[in-house]
Every structure is written in structure tokens, then in C-alpha cells.
């Protein structure tokens, strides 16, 4: 089980600020693809990703027990 945290407008799209994905391990890229299909989160092409509060790139891996946060940059000021 991988825990997913969604920030800003991703929440509204997915209807929740937290999701879980039942996987042993996956690359961030694959994880994004799953979420894009399931929740139409096309915005995932433009987010920062943290695994256990550390910045990661798309080819890195998340494992069961990890918390993955998707953080879309917001532009207002």
C-alpha cells in the first residue's frame, strides 16, 4: 500500500486529499500514469513529487509503506 497526498487543485480533481494505491513498488512515472487514468489528473505532468518528504524524479521508485506527495506549483501572489 502506497499512501498518496494531493495538494492544491489536485484535491478537488480527485475528490480527496489522500488516496492509497495497492502496490508493492512502482516508479513515480508509472504511479502518475495510474492516477492520470483513474482520476483524470492530467495536471500530474507538472507537479513536484516527494517520497517521504524528499524530492524525487519521475524515474525513482516508491514502495509499499511510503508516502508520496504530489505538489503542484501555485502561481498566485
Amino acid at each position: 500500500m502506497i499512501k498518496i497526498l494531493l495538494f492544491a487543485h489536485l484535491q478537488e480533481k480527485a475528490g480527496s486529499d489522500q488516496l492509497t494505491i495497492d502496490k508493492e513498488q512502482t516508479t513515480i512515472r508509472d504511479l502518475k500514469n495510474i492516477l492520470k487514468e483513474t482520476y483524470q489528473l492530467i495536471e500530474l505532468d507538472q507537479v513536484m513529487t516527494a517520497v517521504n518528504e524528499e524530492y524525487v524524479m519521475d524515474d525513482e521508485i516508491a514502495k509499499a509503506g511510503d508516502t508520496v506527495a504530489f505538489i503542484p506549483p501555485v502561481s498566485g501572489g
Partner: protein
Amino acid sequence: MGNRYSRQILFKPIGEAGQEKIQNKHILILGCGALGSANAENLVRAGIGKLTIIDRDYVELSNLQRQQLYTEKEVTEQLPKAMAAKQRLQQINSSVVIDAYVMDATPVTLLPLLKNVDILIDATDNFETRFILNDLAHKEQIPWIYGSCVGSTGMSFTVLPDETPCLGCLMDTMPVSGATCDSVGIISPAVQMVVAHQTAEALKLLVGDNNACRTKLVTFDLWNNHYHMMKVDRAKKADCPTCGENPSYPHLNYESRTKSEVLCGRNTVQIRTPQKLNLDELAHRLQKIAPVRHNHFLLSLEYESYRLVFFQDGRTLIHGTDSIEKAKTIYNQLAG
């Protein structure tokens, strides 16, 4: 000014020595909207030596819900934000030197203002300008403090040239963010939360306590009770065109920028001419077409279903359309 800063001097990491440093430093804040006005108020209250503030806009009624320095009076007077902010800031602390500029921030207009600036604070509302700021800050080796907010969320990061990753490392491509204050709204606590982080980081840098700076990117959501700090050390890229080994500063190539632009989500087009506008002459001409409002900094009038605001520095805002073509037609009809 006697005991004016006594509570700040009592705070150990600042103290007498820190207060003296603060009073000898110069900060530039880019933008006088929600983040800018609140950051400016904090720094002026803290006794910063000199503050440069830059904004291209004027005070509108819908700003008052979250933009700290402005009141109903400045809305009625249609004062440019930089001027309205300066007025209030000097009432708060008359000993701070404040330079206010009503202008568009571009690499060309910003560069001369960065001389002797110790810290840059990001209070812009778009990533285009933030990437220019990111390039300029690295070129001139000035720390800058990123901040942004929308809805009940916000984020901040302290960019130290040669130490931390830069904005380009964190976001390889410029985000085409659909989430602006004009599209999904904003509540004032989200603004203040970002500003609290930005001002705290600025104070650390001002007194030279750089080790205390937050090295993580912070994100929060006040409505959903989230607060997240992300370690970003590994994001720093050796080949980053801004902070890497061979920087090319890709966002400083001003020539490629358009002279007309749609302001995101605002149903407004901005047209920029290289010449300054003579507002008196323009007022004289336009008052035959429609009633004109006019102050020292700008001139506005209603025309058909549009509202036009002409600025001294050569810019015109055409409210009521998202079409550059339509805007140019109207502009040419009136000022052309």
C-alpha cells in the same frame, strides 16, 4: 527612535547587533499585491534600511479582501499599488527609505535596480516573472525568497545562489498553472502564512544567521490542515541553465517576449509601448470620447463594454476582453 525595536532586539537571534544590520540593509520586493504589501509592511515595521517596491498595477476594489496596505480611499483614487503602498509604509515608519516603481518587471527594467540589493522577495503572481527573478538572482548572486499562494494553500522556498537548488531545478518546465487567485480564489490567511515564512527567512538572512534558513520547500493547506516540508537537496542539477556550472540564464532574453499579453484569468489584455505616455495630452484628446478619470500616475475611461487604463510608463490595460486582436483594435481606435 528610542525603544521602537525593543521587542525585536530582545529576541536573542537578532539582538542589538542584528537590529543594526537590519537597519543597514536593502531589500527589493517584486510585486505589491497580497504577498508584496504584507512583506513590505513587515520589513518596514522591522526597520529595514531601504526598501524597493515594484508593481505595474493599481488598487482595485477586489484587492481589499487580502491586500494589506490599501483602503477604500486608494480604490476611489485609482492609485498605483506601488504609490499607495509607499504612502502607507511611510506613515508606519518614516525612517525607512522607500523607492517605489510603477512598472512592468522585465530583465531590462529590473537589472539596474538590483545594485546593492541584499535580498529579493518574490511577490509576483506568475511564473514567467519568477523565472526572470531566478535568473537575475543567480547572475547577481543575490538570495531570493520564493512565495506563492492560491485558495487556502501556499508554498515558499529560500533560494541561496551556490548553495540550494534553484527554481529551475525544482520545476524543469515552467508550470502552466491553471490555479491562480483569479480562477480559484484565495483567502487572506493563505497569504499571511506564506508571508510569515518569507519574512522570517528574510530576517535570518538580514542578521547573517544563514544557518537557520529553512533548506526545505514548505507547502501548506490551511483549510485541510496540511503542512509539508520537502527536502530538496537532491534536486540541484549540475547542468541547470540558471544555477549550474555553465549558466545561460535563458529567461533573460527579453527580445523574445511579446509586447501584448493576456493577463491570466483577469479578462484583461496589456499592451506595452516603448515610449512613455503623456497622460495630460491623452486626457485632453480622450475626454471628447468618454468621461476620463486622471491622476498623476494613470488615466482611465469606459469605452463601449471595456475599461481602459493608461499608465505613464507606456502600458495600457484593456479590461473586458481576453482577445489581443480585439484589444489592439480598441487601443488603436482611442490612442493609436
